[in-house]
């Protein structure tokens, strides 16, 4: 179990450098090596999306990616989206529209939704349901998650217009 690899990556704006076994999964790197526990483990097989993070602009499920594959990348987790004093509109919208219950899927949901709204700033309900289909929630039945994302999209669009 030697043969450690030299990994360099940027996580939530901070440079990280360490040695890791080639088999180390990114989700354990984040959760156990770097103490970033927002991304969760729900299925181990890429189905549930609780571990969703953003890597170089793409939504990725961290439970089925080796950290070695993420070496040299820039990773954003829920911890890198908004701060307590300045929440992301999606974080506000999920609170406002009861888009979560147990909270376990929420970091992955919001992280995925940030990318969805970048890909498509004005999604229809169908776009949202399709675009979020890689993230499972067992509590909400999705209705209020869809509503939260719709509300955030409107909020972000009007903020953008105001800025232009």
């Amino acid at each position, binding site marked *: 179990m030697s043969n450690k690899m030299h990994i360099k990556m940027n996580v939530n704006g901070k440079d990280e450098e360490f040695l890791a076994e080639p088999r180390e999964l990114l989700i354990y790197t984040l959760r156990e090596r770097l103490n970033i526990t927002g991304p969760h483990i729900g299925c181990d097989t890429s189905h549930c999306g609780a571990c969703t993070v953003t890597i170089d602009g793409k939504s990725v499920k961290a439970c089925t990616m080796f950290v070695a594959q993420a070496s040299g990348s820039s990773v954003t987790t829920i911890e890198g989206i908004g701060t307590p004093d300045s929440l992301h509109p999606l974080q506000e919208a999920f609170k406002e529209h009861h888009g979560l219950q147990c909270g376990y899927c929420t970091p992955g949901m919001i992280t995925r939704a940030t990318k969805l709204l970048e890909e498509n700033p004005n999604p229809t309900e169908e776009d949202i*349901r399709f675009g979020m289909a890689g993230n499972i929630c067992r509590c909400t039945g999705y209705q209020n998650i869809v509503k939260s994302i719709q509300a955030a999209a409107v909020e972000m669009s009007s903020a953008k217009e105001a800025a232009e």
Partner: protein
Amino acid sequence: MKDEVISRDDRVANLKGMGCSRKRVEDARFTQGKGNYVDDIKLDGMLFGDFVRSPYAHARIKGINAEEALKIPGVLAVLTAEDLAPLGLHWMPTLAGDKQMVLADGKVLFQGQEVAFVVAEDRYAAADGIELVEVDYEELPVIVDPFESLKSDVVLREDLDPNADGAHGPRKHPNHIFTWEAGDKEPTEEVIANADIVAEESMYYHRTHPCPLETCGSVALMDKVNGKLTLWGTFQAPHAIRTIVSLISGIEEHNIRVISPDIGGGFGNKVGAYPGYVCSVVASIVTGRPVKWIEDRMDNLMTTAFARDYWMKGKISATKEGKITGLQCHVTADHGGFDACADPTKFPAGFMNICTGSYDIPTAYLEVDGVYTNKAPGGVSYRCSFRVTEAVYFIERMIEVLAIKLNMDSAELRRINFIKKEQFPYKAALGWEYDSGDYHTAWDKALKTVDYDGLRAEQAQRVEDFKAGKTRKLMGIGLSFFTEIVGAGPVKNCDILGLGMFDSCEIRIHPTGSAIARLGTISQGQGHATTFAQILASEIGLPADSITIEEGDTDTAPYGLGTYGSRSTPVAGAATAMAGRKIRAKAQMIAAYLLEVHDNDVEFDVDRFVVKGAPERFKTMKEIAFAAYNQAIPGLEPGLEAVSYYDPPNMTYPFGAYVCVMDIDVDTGVPEIRRFYALDDCGTRINPMIIEGQVHGGLTEALAVALGQEIAYDDMGNCKTGTLMDFFLPTAWEVPNYETDFTVTPSPHHPIGAKGVGESPHVGGVPCFSNAVQDAFRPFGNTHTNMPHDHWRIWKTANGLGLHD
């Protein structure tokens, strides 16, 4: 005074008390990734433990060799039953009065059973260790069918004396667990034998699994210096777990602290006690270091807490006009290798005896036989109150089958058999006393809202079009009317391992007019920190925003039986209101003293006590709180605290009316849900936003169970559904938007009239989705097909009815 300019309505609004859609206080941490779930816990020197599991469903263990595993760097120990036996911990009691192996003791009874526990520096080393533990198995004949089990010469539980009674009375066969009866056998048989009309049906309520997104896990820390054990874990009943740990480990209960941190959904999965919990404790005692155990998804689906698996056979009799006269039900209940069902002690088949449903059925009889097979143990209440889901599915299918026999509309059949409003409290034939209900009002509202007659006309036209070759899609109208029985329960008939099923709340008011309240329950997403503060705000007149709710730490919270079976609001919610009233009673005395009037001359008004007839003379609860710590009041102790242990006088009986409209493509078997209307009556409504969220979630879990979710085994006892590839969890893409509605029939015996709602949508939803599928095929001769109605099975139904010819 500044207060005087605020209107009474504003004062009410400021409290954010009962009835308002207060935003959840939990959400700040969850939306920022700052929840604290058990796998987030990291302690100095913490080890990771994981199981060697049996690949066989039934096998004798001839030897275990851990030598090679122990050579792996980072592997510290490999525990087997032999190591646990001297401590008496190789077996543990189950909640159902049976016992279960913690680690395989000579044999295994289901695939995935825990055989050895590898303790290592981290999860990778543990996994490496598991690979190298050699187990010598001798395969034994496998039984996965409970009917075969009762005829077989193969004895599954060799540890039990075949001639001795089980925990629930005589056993008929070495693989038989119990027979449980309710109602009157002979009179029911007589009524059915002499009835105008009798409908019969056999149905299988398939095995499934609650599958919360977070699996089960624990972290144990045995502090040998102080003799204290701390156990964090995914516990829906932390106090009961503390008592169980004390009883089986011999550690005195005051030296055990059990903590349920944030829980990522429970749905019944996290009620029981699992070998992993015990092994993490033992491993911490052995190594002197904290030990974490976390299930992976496959462990979770294959080993902890299946639900349902009921083979139900029913007879229902009626007059020619459709008045139901009798109901008979026999259940063969597959409990797997150990009887680990999570039910109150006196109810080995849970509340299956609510199977007369919402109908005035004069005579009924229920018999349940529990059976061992080579499948995983469990039998938990998956988003339901102890087998109510099975009961409601049974009666709501029997009603449909009877309607077919009578050639009658099933909405009308329901209407003429509903228990009438004036019959409450209603004593049902199988023993329960329903507290309150107004079924006709709810049903009429539901049918009117969806334009039921219009839907039936559309459906008739669709059948014509189908027959004329104009469409390949059929239309199904699913109906269900359910009565739940929740809030277990009165201590006189409900206990778990002898612990009465009361619940509790303890309140401390702080000098500056804020408060903390601790409860014996534990939220798993239901939003207790939000809603219980609302109950208190209305009861004690301090803003909900100034009240912290805390649960899940047995060192600080009062003893309670936890959260499952929709019992938090009916039981702990009642305790909260009652404790609040104790606070208010003392506050009244303080107010009277401060206002220099007699106690009876002041009255409570929203957030203050006012002098009767002189509303300008008052003391706010904030002022009273300060006075409680600041004034020496003759005859009163300082401080403002209260505790209530609430033993409910009865269960509560929420009910609801659901309608599902579905289009089904007969060539692909794909159902498309066009509309789902859900009317729920949960009595007094504490937070409408949260109620609606619970309904959406419960309906989605119902959709999953009815339309595809299943724990399936092959003949060798291999679990075929161990990952989310095979086990259906609906995504946003498959789930419709739901329309929610309500009526309010308060519980007459609950202090605030609330009945509980979390499980209603699941209980009522499963038969509604199923009935929609079955109804689509009714015009072509279908009476009943078993769930889950996945695309393949729907296609097969269509094919069997000749619709592809």
